[in-house]
């Protein structure tokens, strides 16, 4: 066996080798893991019963490097800890060192950091939205999110000259000042971004696929979340309003007014809503920070003036080669265990850096407590919990890196998505004749079991229901759903797909005029114009007496006799405007 093969070997258990369960190796390279992650998944049909995440494919030993490189030289490495929101890592590491050494950061630098921090948060949340969208087939989301992300990169580029890994933070402040021209650009972006978030919500929040794949998926209780050490949107999605920016403020976050959105049910959908709302709050913070930068903090220092630890600003001449100034602890004979873990709120949760200094050039130990490992760990309770149908979707909503992947087709609790269907009594709602037609129909289609109704009969049944009621009201749809044992949303989405089902009241006669190319070339526009002139109705409109509704058909398939219209199942061909109005006149 080759080395490569051995790395991926796994032993089937008794159950998976001989029972109904199947073990599936997923990753480490898979388009939907958005990174290297390997999952050993035990499946019962399409339901995940067990999952063993295997990490370490991207282990880079950064802590070891930090112990050798020293404080300043390790700074750019922090960007790469999480390339979705690099500046947040800069800030976290910087604050840890500042607190360790007792450096006071000037207020203006803090406000600049707040701007950069919130911009980074947006880039991270946008990746989550975009990639999770694309994994569920919502390709548009990806483009929209990346469009906005690109604008943020443009702003970072304007600020620092780099897009993704700018490292603009330094111990004691920031590398560059933020000129007024830039703050006005950021303010303009923030103003427009609110509308973008509304657009995202329009595309996703009420979207049936998005809803089904997120609602009730990956539920975590508040107790589980705390025990697992979850932080950030994942914790808030469980209903715990904990946010370091408010509870343990740093970088002057106490000066900003923002809300902390929380969820209620702790499922992937709540975590999605929390993130979307957080983007709106970030937008507010951005505006406030820009106002402060241009107002009370104008002209302030951006770097602490403490040369023991802080590198001189770029504009001034460097001494000692710049990057090699050792950071020194105030007291070289300090006790050996001076250790600080500072936590700061990254895009995915609390981010902590643990640094132990002995007053030497390099830290004797460092570690970073990233939010992601505890998030990743969350796979476990999800897999073993009551809702064993949890897919990695549940995690897709947790961080931007774990995309979704395994989607289940038929969710057992899809019934939840509609009103309770059992209370409707279709036999009382429809006439006896219609019910007789229904019963004749359902006999023609195969059933999954003796008790169930054939779903395939839905479309012909809808035709009959519409024939009786004239159009498909919500009530009618609910009764059809009750008759077939479906969720009302399933009937609704079928009905809304086909133009021949009317979901608004129509007149006694529905006139379909074909508008496809053959009819169009041979005079359909004149027919439509004449109808409008004669009866005062446009497409989708009904005459006042409720006699005629005009509808435009995509194609009636009567090209040889174009233009064509259809009324009550009968075709009228080779129309002229006068002929068409004549026919409509003769309708009752």
């Amino acid at each position, binding site marked *: 066996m080759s080395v490569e093969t051995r790395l991926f070997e796994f032993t089937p258990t008794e159950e998976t080798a001989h029972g109904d369960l199947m073990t599936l190796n997923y990753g480490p390279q898979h388009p939907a893991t958005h990174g290297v992650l390997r999952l050993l998944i035990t499946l019962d049909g399409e339901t995940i019963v067990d999952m063993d995440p295997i990490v370490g494919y991207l282990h880079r030993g950064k802590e070891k490097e930090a112990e050798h490189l020293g404080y300043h030289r390790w700074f750019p490495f922090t960007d790469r800890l999480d390339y979705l929101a690099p500046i947040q890592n800069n800030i976290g590491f910087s604050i840890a060192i500042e607190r360790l050494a007792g450096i006071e950061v000037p207020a203006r630098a803090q406000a600049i950091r707040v701007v950069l921090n919130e911009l980074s948060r947006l880039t991270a949340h946008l990746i989550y939205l975009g990639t999770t969208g694309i994994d569920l087939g919502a390709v548009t989301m990806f483009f929209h999110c990346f469009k906005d992300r690109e604008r943020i990169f443009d702003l970072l580029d304007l600020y620092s000259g780099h897009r993704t890994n700018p490292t603009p933070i330094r111990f004691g402040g920031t590398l560059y000042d933020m000129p007024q021209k830039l703050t006005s650009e950021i303010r303009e972006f923030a103003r427009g971004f609110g509308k973008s978030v509304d657009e995202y919500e329009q595309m996703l929040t009420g979207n049936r696929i998005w809803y089904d794949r997120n609602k009730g998926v990956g539920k975590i209780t508040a107790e589980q979340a705390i025990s697992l050490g979850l932080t950030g949107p994942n914790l808030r999605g469980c209903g715990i309003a904990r946010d370091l920016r408010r*509870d343990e403020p740093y970088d002057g976050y106490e000066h900003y007014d923002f809300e902390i*959105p929380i969820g209620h049910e702790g499922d992937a959908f709540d975590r999605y809503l929390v993130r979307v709302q957080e983007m709106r709050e970030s937008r507010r913070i951005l505006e406030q920070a820009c106002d402060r930068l241009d107002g009370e903090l104008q002209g302030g220092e951006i770097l602490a003036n403490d040369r023991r630890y802080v590198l001189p600003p770029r504009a001034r001449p460097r001494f000692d080669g710049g990057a090699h100034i050792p950071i020194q602890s105030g007291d070289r004979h300090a006790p050996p265990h001076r250790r600080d*873990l500072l936590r700061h709120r990254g895009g995915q949760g609390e981010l902590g850096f*643990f640094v132990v200094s002995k007053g030497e050039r390099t830290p004797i130990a460092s570690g970073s407590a990233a939010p992601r490992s505890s998030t990743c760990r969350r796979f476990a309770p999800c897999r073993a919990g009551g809702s064993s149908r949890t897919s990695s979707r549940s995690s897709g909503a947790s961080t931007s890196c774990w995309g979704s992947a395994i989607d289940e087709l038929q969710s057992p609790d899809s019934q939840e998505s509609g009103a309770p269907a059992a209370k409707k009594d279709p036999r009382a709602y429809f006439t006896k004749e219609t019910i007789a037609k229904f019963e004749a129909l359902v006999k023609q289609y195969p059933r999954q079991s003796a008790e169930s109704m054939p779903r395939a009969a839905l479309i012909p049944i809808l035709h009959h229901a519409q024939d009786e009621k004239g159009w498909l009201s919500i009530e009618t749809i609910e009764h059809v759903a009750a008759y077939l044992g479906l969720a009302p949303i399933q009937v609704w989405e079928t009905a809304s797909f086909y133009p021949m089902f009317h979901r608004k009241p129509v007149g006694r006669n529905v006139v379909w005029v074909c508008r496809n190319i053959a009819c169009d070339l041979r005079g359909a526009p004149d027919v439509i114009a004449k109808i409008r002139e004669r009866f005062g109705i446009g497409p989708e409109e009904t005459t006042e007496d409720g006699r005629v509704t005009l509808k435009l058909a995509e194609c009636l398939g009567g090209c040889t006799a174009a233009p064509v219209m259809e009324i009550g199942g009968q075709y009228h061909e080779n129309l002229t405007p006068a002929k068409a109005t004549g026919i409509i006149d003769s309708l009752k």
Partner: protein
Amino acid sequence: MNRQESTPQGASDSAAQGRPSAKPSPRERMERCHSALTLAFGPGGRYESWDLSVSEGRDMPSMEVRRGEVSPTIEALRDDPALAFDQLSYLTATDELPEEPRFRLVYFLASTKYSWRLKVHTKIAEADARVRSIVSLHSGANWMEREVYDMFGIRFEGHPELKRILMPEEYGHHPLRKDFPIEGIQPDRLYREWEAARNAAYGEGRGAGNGR
């Protein structure tokens, strides 16, 4: 599909009403936490008989406990309503070679109720590098203990599946120990196999990259 119910808007601070509204500075928070700990563990406190020391720190107090008492201490910290350290933020170790005992295991605890933080640390000797697992107290410790085991070689007794997390299972070294070289050590067996495969493909001493 009543999504109004789960929209977080407006509900933002309902769960936060009970929290102290004033925002204490990190220093004040540390002092409050420290006095609560002294009340519980100091002279006349509920856990007076326990052999541990509480001291102030820069942004959080720290407690030094004996190795065997890590687990009961963390349990008491979690379950005592006046302390309520219900969340494990991070668990790691430092190797302070050549000091003896060389390892120091550090637990960072957080209280979501009071917004306090605390570190609990204990010394561990290389010869007997093991400690009771706290996975049953904080399930989030699962991977962190695996990481410490992987990186430092400290064993956690009672861990549900103590195996390496980042390095290959058969890897014979612990990379974050101070005597581990920064250049790294290739896993021997895999390296030999890789070398054999490479030599078979390209001939002795040839091929792209030599892997070490």
